Protein backbone atom coordinates (compact mmCIF):
# COMPACT_ATOMS: atom_id res chain seq x y z
CA UNK A 1 0.00 0.00 0.00
CA UNK A 2 1.48 3.36 -0.91
CA UNK A 3 0.91 6.66 -2.61
CA UNK A 4 0.81 4.93 -5.99
CA UNK A 5 -2.14 2.81 -4.86
CA UNK A 6 -3.93 5.87 -3.52
CA UNK A 7 -3.50 7.42 -6.97
CA UNK A 8 -4.79 4.24 -8.64
CA UNK A 9 -7.93 4.10 -6.44
CA UNK A 10 -8.52 7.80 -7.08
CA UNK A 11 -8.12 7.36 -10.87
CA UNK A 12 -10.51 4.40 -10.92
CA UNK A 13 -13.20 6.64 -9.45
CA UNK A 14 -12.52 9.72 -11.58
CA UNK A 15 -12.48 7.58 -14.75
CA UNK A 16 -15.88 6.04 -14.01
CA UNK A 17 -18.30 7.30 -16.66
CA UNK A 18 -21.02 8.24 -14.13
CA UNK A 19 -18.66 10.11 -11.80
CA UNK A 20 -18.63 13.92 -12.05
CA UNK A 21 -16.32 14.66 -9.14
CA UNK A 22 -14.13 13.05 -6.45
CA UNK A 23 -13.03 14.93 -3.34
CA UNK A 24 -11.11 13.75 -0.25
CA UNK A 25 -11.02 16.08 2.74
CA UNK A 26 -9.87 15.90 6.37
CA UNK A 27 -12.23 16.44 9.30
CA UNK A 28 -11.79 20.22 9.09
CA UNK A 29 -12.80 20.24 5.45
CA UNK A 30 -9.31 20.87 4.11
CA UNK A 31 -8.74 19.24 0.72
CA UNK A 32 -6.29 16.35 0.45
CA UNK A 33 -7.12 15.25 -3.10
CA UNK A 34 -9.71 16.50 -5.57
CA UNK A 35 -10.50 16.76 -9.27
CA UNK A 36 -12.92 19.67 -8.82
CA UNK A 37 -12.09 23.25 -9.78
CA UNK A 38 -11.08 25.42 -6.76
CA UNK A 39 -14.35 27.36 -6.28
CA UNK A 40 -16.58 24.27 -6.53
CA UNK A 41 -14.11 22.40 -4.36
CA UNK A 42 -14.23 25.03 -1.60
CA UNK A 43 -18.05 25.11 -1.65
CA UNK A 44 -18.48 21.32 -1.63
CA UNK A 45 -15.84 20.66 1.05
CA UNK A 46 -17.25 23.29 3.44
CA UNK A 47 -20.91 22.36 2.99
CA UNK A 48 -20.51 18.60 3.00
CA UNK A 49 -18.22 18.61 6.05
CA UNK A 50 -20.93 20.50 7.94
CA UNK A 51 -23.67 18.17 6.66
CA UNK A 52 -21.71 15.10 7.80
CA UNK A 53 -21.25 16.69 11.25
CA UNK A 54 -25.04 17.14 11.49
CA UNK A 55 -25.71 13.60 10.27
CA UNK A 56 -23.23 12.11 12.76
CA UNK A 57 -24.77 14.07 15.65
CA UNK A 58 -28.24 12.99 14.53
CA UNK A 59 -27.23 9.29 14.50
CA UNK A 60 -25.48 9.57 17.88
CA UNK A 61 -28.44 11.31 19.51
CA UNK A 62 -30.73 8.53 18.32
CA UNK A 63 -28.37 5.86 19.63
CA UNK A 64 -25.09 6.61 21.39
CA UNK A 65 -23.59 3.24 20.40
CA UNK A 66 -24.37 3.67 16.70
CA UNK A 67 -22.23 5.34 14.02
CA UNK A 68 -22.62 6.87 10.56
CA UNK A 69 -21.07 4.64 7.88
CA UNK A 70 -22.36 6.09 4.56
CA UNK A 71 -24.46 9.04 3.45
CA UNK A 72 -26.18 9.28 0.04
CA UNK A 73 -27.66 12.64 -0.87
CA UNK A 74 -29.78 12.22 -4.01
CA UNK A 75 -30.77 15.48 -5.68
CA UNK A 76 -32.65 16.32 -8.88
CA UNK A 77 -29.36 16.71 -10.75
CA UNK A 78 -26.97 14.14 -9.26
CA UNK A 79 -26.10 11.97 -6.27
CA UNK A 80 -23.48 12.82 -3.64
CA UNK A 81 -22.00 9.74 -1.91
CA UNK A 82 -20.05 10.33 1.26
CA UNK A 83 -17.96 7.78 3.21
CA UNK A 84 -17.07 9.28 6.59
CA UNK A 85 -14.14 8.19 8.80
CA UNK A 86 -12.63 9.40 12.06
CA UNK A 87 -10.25 11.71 10.22
CA UNK A 88 -11.20 11.80 6.52
CA UNK A 89 -14.20 12.04 4.18
CA UNK A 90 -14.44 10.54 0.68
CA UNK A 91 -16.97 12.51 -1.40
CA UNK A 92 -18.04 11.24 -4.84
CA UNK A 93 -20.56 13.01 -7.10
CA UNK A 94 -22.25 10.84 -9.72
CA UNK A 95 -25.07 11.18 -12.22
CA UNK A 96 -27.13 7.99 -11.98
CA UNK A 97 -29.62 9.23 -14.59
CA UNK A 98 -27.35 7.96 -17.35
CA UNK A 99 -27.84 4.36 -16.21
Amino acid at each position, binding site marked *: *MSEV*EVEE*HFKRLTNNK*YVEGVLIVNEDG*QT*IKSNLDPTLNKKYSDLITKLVDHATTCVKEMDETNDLSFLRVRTKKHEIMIVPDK*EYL*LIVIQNPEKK
Partner: protein
Amino acid sequence: EKKKMQQLKDISEDDRKKIISSNEFVEFIDHSTKIVERALNENYDYMKDYSIIKDNENDDQ
Protein backbone atom coordinates in the same frame (compact mmCIF):
# COMPACT_ATOMS: atom_id res chain seq x y z
CA GLU B 1 -12.35 26.97 17.71
CA LYS B 2 -10.50 30.04 16.48
CA LYS B 3 -9.21 27.95 13.55
CA LYS B 4 -12.73 27.27 12.24
CA MET B 5 -13.68 30.93 12.40
CA GLN B 6 -10.98 32.53 10.23
CA GLN B 7 -10.70 31.43 6.62
CA LEU B 8 -9.39 27.88 6.74
CA LYS B 9 -5.92 27.78 5.13
CA ASP B 10 -5.23 24.90 2.74
CA ILE B 11 -3.03 22.08 3.93
CA SER B 12 0.70 22.68 3.28
CA GLU B 13 2.24 20.50 0.58
CA ASP B 14 4.37 18.63 3.16
CA ASP B 15 1.38 17.85 5.40
CA ARG B 16 -0.52 16.61 2.34
CA LYS B 17 2.38 14.32 1.36
CA LYS B 18 2.65 13.02 4.92
CA ILE B 19 -1.09 12.27 5.08
CA ILE B 20 -1.19 10.52 1.70
CA SER B 21 1.62 8.15 2.63
CA SER B 22 0.29 7.42 6.13
CA ASN B 23 -1.18 3.95 6.82
CA GLU B 24 -4.48 5.27 8.18
CA PHE B 25 -5.08 7.28 5.03
CA VAL B 26 -4.19 4.44 2.63
CA GLU B 27 -6.44 2.06 4.57
CA PHE B 28 -9.26 4.63 4.52
CA ILE B 29 -8.91 5.04 0.73
CA ASP B 30 -8.89 1.28 0.16
CA HIS B 31 -11.97 0.74 2.36
CA SER B 32 -14.00 3.77 1.23
CA THR B 33 -13.36 3.49 -2.54
CA LYS B 34 -14.51 -0.15 -2.43
CA ILE B 35 -17.86 0.88 -0.95
CA VAL B 36 -18.35 3.67 -3.48
CA GLU B 37 -17.37 1.43 -6.40
CA ARG B 38 -19.94 -1.17 -5.36
CA ALA B 39 -22.56 1.58 -5.13
CA LEU B 40 -21.49 2.91 -8.55
CA ASN B 41 -21.79 -0.54 -10.12
CA GLU B 42 -25.44 -0.85 -9.13
CA ASN B 43 -26.91 -0.29 -12.59
CA TYR B 44 -30.37 0.02 -11.04
CA ASP B 45 -31.62 3.55 -10.39
CA TYR B 46 -34.25 3.35 -7.64
CA MET B 47 -35.41 6.89 -8.42
CA LYS B 48 -36.41 5.97 -11.97
CA ASP B 49 -39.99 4.85 -12.57
CA TYR B 50 -39.23 1.95 -14.92
CA SER B 51 -42.95 1.20 -15.26
CA ILE B 52 -43.37 4.10 -17.70
CA ILE B 53 -43.30 2.52 -21.18
CA LYS B 54 -39.88 2.96 -22.87
CA ASP B 55 -40.86 5.42 -25.65
CA ASN B 56 -42.54 8.10 -23.57
CA GLU B 57 -39.95 7.70 -20.79
CA ASN B 58 -37.63 10.08 -22.63
CA ASP B 59 -40.28 12.81 -22.62
CA ASP B 60 -40.00 12.86 -18.81
CA GLN B 61 -36.27 13.62 -18.85
